[in-house]
């Protein structure tokens, strides 16, 4: 401990000196970097883990009108949501031709349906007669046609007009032009993405080559969703997203986690305009707690996202001179292999243990690690800018025998329920999500009450918040672009 304290003091001096260096260059004093922690692992991490891509993006305050003004939300619906790529559903939700799922964002609604083995479409979910939704929001099923429940106009699965009831009365309607308008669709890693803007860049272009290479390496098409939980949150959608973009809050919001989390030395990266990430090493002590805990404490306090995969096994004890991080990596490899019937021998210690949080603008999080194998999606409430819908999906590798389990039924929590109440949720992880989301109404109300009209951000640890808000600003500076059938395929 004496050695550690000495190192810490030396590092603090170095930082004081470092204050004169370039903005954004300072890092947590006296602590190893995320890359140094990972480099010491037994099973080496792949290239996508062992890289850094931080950029200083400015240190001005972020204006708060974006969270509290209804007019700002309206502008987002007209400019941002109509131009950006969004995760609509998993491919496994619509395995057969005619299977469909309805995806809504704000006032917009789409029928995501499979027309062929490699052909998935996103139809604007409205009858071309008098506008009734062809399928109710939140629904899914299998259709041989999409028939309107009002007057019975119907469309084939491929979007062409099937029937106009009493066609003699509609000589002015050209059946050839009566196909359902479509949003753009791309599938990546088993995720179906849509974009309402016919002029939008391809998904690969939108994500950029560097991040696309990361995503491809994960082979997420070989995973399945085993738990899907949703809950309405009492805040603007952007505040909810920003609550998950940094580990800076861990020591105060999740003190129980900090014992086994390199929070202040988490790594932050940005990739182009739409993607950012952090790597938050687990199985190591928080720099805030140096000298206050032992390696055995780390083992005792570790919380696992996919706790169910370990089948309630007891936590191990540390051997002489061993590190908690290595013990946990070795233990997880065996237990996850057994629990999920998969081969993880080639998977690095870091992928097994660490929290990799990536976001794809505007509202999609992917955590490709093994111990925290999650997806988050946040959507604004179309009627209330102070509310949003949060979903968390947990993924596991498809079993070795190749049989993909059926998609799960989502669990919808009431506003007053704890995440711990969702059947299948690890209680320790549910408690973490409660801690995260219980701050949010206080932040929403505080921003409305505050005499200060800007958020102040850390240069390094909160760079993802700034990167995200920079993208919001980019889209909000554009002209409104509401979808228009005259400019949409297949016309």
């Amino acid at each position, binding site marked *: 401990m004496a050695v550690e304290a000495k190192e810490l003091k030396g590092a603090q001096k170095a930082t004081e000196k470092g204050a004169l260096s370039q903005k954004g260059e300072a890092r947590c004093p006296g602590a190893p970097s995320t890359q140094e922690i990972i480099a010491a692992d037994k099973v080496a991490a792949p290239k996508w883990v062992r890289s850094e891509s931080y950029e200083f993006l400015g240190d001005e305050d972020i204006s708060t009108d974006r969270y509290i003004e209804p007019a700002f939300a309206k502008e987002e619906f007209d400019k941002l949501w109509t131009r950006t790529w969004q995760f609509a559903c998993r491919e496994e939700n619509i395995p*057969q031709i005619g*299977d469909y799922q309805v995806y809504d964002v704000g006032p917009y609604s789409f029928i995501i349906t499979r027309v062929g083995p490699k052909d998935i479409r996103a139809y604007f979910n409205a009858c071309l007669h008098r506008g009734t939704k*062809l*399928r*109710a929001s*939140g*629904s*899914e*099923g*299998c*259709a*041989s*046609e999409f*028939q309107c*429940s009002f007057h019975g106009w119907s469309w084939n699965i491929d979007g062409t007009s099937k029937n106009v009831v009493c066609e003699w009365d509609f000589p002015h309607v050209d059946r050839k032009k009566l196909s359902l308008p479509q949003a753009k669709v791309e599938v990546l890693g088993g995720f179906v993405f849509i974009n309402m803007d016919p002029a939008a860049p391809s998904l690969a272009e939108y994500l950029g080559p560097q991040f696309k290479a990361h995503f491809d390496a994960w082979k997420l098409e070989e995973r399945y969703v085993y738990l899907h939980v949703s809950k309405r949150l009492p805040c603007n959608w952007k505040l909810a997203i920003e609550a998950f973009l940094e580990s800076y809050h861990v020591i105060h919001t999740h003190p129980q986690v900090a014992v086994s989390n390199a929070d202040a030395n988490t790594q932050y990266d940005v990739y182009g305009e739409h993607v950012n990430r952090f790597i938050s090493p687990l199985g190591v002590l928080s720099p805030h707690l140096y000298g206050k805990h032992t390696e055995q404490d780390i083992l005792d306090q570790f919380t696992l996202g996919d706790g169910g995969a370990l089948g309630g096994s007891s936590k191990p004890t540390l051997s002489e001179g061993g590190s908690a991080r290595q013990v946990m990596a070795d233990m997880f490899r065996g237990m996850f292999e057994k629990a999920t019937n998969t081969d993880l021998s080639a998977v690095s210690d870091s992928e097994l243990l660490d929290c990799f949080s990536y976001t794809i603008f505007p509202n999609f999080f992917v955590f490709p690690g093994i111990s925290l194998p999650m997806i988050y999606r946040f959507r604004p409430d179309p009627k209330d800018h102070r509310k949003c819908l949060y979903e968390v999906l947990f993924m596991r590798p498809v079993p070795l025998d190749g049989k993909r389990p*059926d*998609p*799960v*039924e989502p669990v919808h929590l009431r506003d007053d329920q704890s995440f711990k109440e969702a059947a299948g949720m690890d209680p320790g992880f549910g408690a973490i999500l409660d801690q995260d989301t219980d701050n949010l109404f206080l932040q929403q109300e505080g921003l409305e009450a505050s005499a200060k009209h800007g958020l102040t951000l850390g240069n390094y640890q909160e760079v993802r918040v700034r990167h995200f808000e920079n993208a919001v600003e980019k889209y909000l500076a554009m002209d409104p672009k509401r979808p228009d059938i005259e400019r949409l395929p297949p016309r």
Partner: protein
Amino acid sequence: MTEQAAERAFARVLNVAELPPGTKKAIEVNGVSVLVCNSNDRLYAVSNICSHAHEKLECGRMSRGWIGCPVHGARFDLATGRAMNPPAKEPIATYPVRVVDDWIEVAAG
């Protein structure tokens, strides 16, 4: 109803081998069109007629304990008959179902 009467109300409809997991069959039982379903590792028997526009449910998608109407997309919980999404509001009827000597038996009508 006496135990004997309840016993009589069950009608043999299918051999269990005829209804593998994830499948469903429409059967006429005492004049009632019944959909017998094998979903989520258990058997269900529900009305084959959607409560919304009276279309047949037998060609709809069945998944995770629900059946969807192929025409307008209403979904029903197979265990309770509850309508899970519009355009249906009313539930569909559910019927007792059991297996006796490898035969699926349903009490309907």
